[in-house]
């Protein structure tokens, strides 16, 4: 497998921040995941080759850290925090609401591959609990209506992109 050229360049640039190539595995996996969506065995091997490090070192990080996905995720990853501060402000009811609206259970992806729904630990934004991370962005002070509006916006954005 040949990585896209700019991915190789970006990984090599990231590695310059460290005196040791092994330190660059995490940033390299981030870059590769952005490129491919999730980390297959081939991608992990490519990362190891670019950095010139042991493959096992790359595998062990890809499987330790929860932000690395070795399985496919939907185009939009809905990550609802259900830790204490969010739980105290209704996260559970929001989860049930989303499961019902999307027709999937927590941990699943919709049939069209659009949404993956997960619960996550504290997102560090408890002042606006309940909070959900959608892609890179945080959405706080959520209730069922706001969730419905958010999902509608995300769907509309995707339909536009499809046209």
């Amino acid at each position, binding site marked *: 497998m040949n990585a896209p050229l700019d991915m190789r360049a970006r990984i090599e640039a990231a590695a310059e*921040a*460290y*005196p*040791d*190539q*092994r*330190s*660059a*595995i*995490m*940033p390299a*996996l*981030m870059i590769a995941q952005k490129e491919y969506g999730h980390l297959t065995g081939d991608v992990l091997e490519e990362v190891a080759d670019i950095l010139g*490090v042991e493959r096992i*070192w790359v595998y*062990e*990080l890809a499987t*330790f*850290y*929860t*932000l*690395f996905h070795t399985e496919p995720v939907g185009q939009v990853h809905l990550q609802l925090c*259900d*830790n*204490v*501060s969010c*739980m*105290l*402000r209704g996260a559970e009811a929001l989860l049930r609401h989303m499961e019902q609206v999307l027709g999937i259970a927590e941990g699943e992806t919709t049939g069209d591959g659009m949404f993956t729904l997960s619960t996550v*630990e*504290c*997102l*560090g*934004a*408890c*002042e*606006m*609990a309940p909070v959900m*991370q959608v892609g*890179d*962005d*945080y959405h706080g002070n959520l209730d069922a209506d706001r969730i419905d509006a958010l999902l509608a916006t995300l769907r509309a954005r995707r339909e536009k992109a499809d046209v």
Partner: protein
Amino acid sequence: MFEPVLLKSVGQPDSHSLSHYRSVGGYEALQKALNDYTPDEIIELVKGSGLRGRGGAGFPTGLKWSFVPKGQEKPKYLCCNADEGEPGTFKDRIIMEEDPHQLLEGMAICAYAIGAETGYLYIRGEYVKAIRILETAIREAHAEGCLGRGILGSDFNFEVHIHEGAGAYICGEETAMLESLQGRRAQPRLKPPFPAVAGLYDSPTVINNVETLACVPHIVERGSSWFNGIGPERSPGPKLYCLSGSLRKPGLYELPMGIPLRELIEEHGGGAPEGRQIKAVIPGGVSAPMIPAEGLDVGMDFDSLAGVGSMLGSAGVIAIDDNTCIVKVATRIVEFFHHESCGKCTPCREGLDWAVKIMRRIEAGEGAPTDLEQLERLCGGIFGNTFCALGDGAAMGIRAALMHFKDEFTAHIDEGRCPYH
């Protein structure tokens, strides 16, 4: 009248820009440090201020810096802990998003004091916005000579690199963070050796929390007696408190260290929402044992909270109201620690697995009368026997819930259901 310094720019237009930071005197402390102080004098200044680490453990910051050996051949490193995973905590995120140069200036002053030319800023990967803002801030600081080579006309060099975390709470533990920075699974290291002597790549390393480092420019600017004149003698300074949970006005508040927890909850947080009462408060992120409502007249500082069997921790203050089941809250906390256990040591890895099973069945109304005893025994087996403080924190959390709210646990068992459902 207490004057906020750490949050003074929050909410101002473009507060994260270098031009805004300069307009409120930014990087003057660094200039002053470089012109008027030797590195040792900075360490003495910070020691004299009484600043204690804001990441949870409260270790004296100047003392930590003084442990770094002088004039060695090996490079020295500064690592800023911006992993902020402790549930209930969001202060470091807000500093980074709103006032990133305050942190960079603090890092530069610390690096000057300990003789480091390289700093790593370990930010949890979920904080995409903070990461983007800091990338820009680092670029801006470089362009104006506040970072890089020959900083502000001196012969001091310092580079900051951002390292993105990838979703593991244990990376907040300082030695696990070093493992993670070295490209390994984040499992804590045995201490000693302490990082100040042999840390990152076996080199002398200082690890400090974001808020700790953000205090440093203000100490240089205003002096150590300004800092230690605020709050209690043994834990002085301005402090960020993260208020969340069942409150009318959740948010981030800067107030003196040591203010009464009751004042924080009732006056600043506005108390419980309409028709509810506060039943318990977790004062320092979920690692800090909960305090029942009767105990709120305690000062929010390291020593006072330790005195009542809890801790200041990250000052993530979570209010729990009387509509909430304590067994459920405690179960959720233990589920968190179980999920985040790195698996290195048996009491934490296996013990928390058992604890979660027992607590879930009690919450579901399927607990047996012997379960409480078994939980107590389990906590005894975990506490004091784990490799790092994660396991201890979990055991202390369970014990506090059992001690203060035993009646709720027994009600679940006796009634065979959760009384709150």
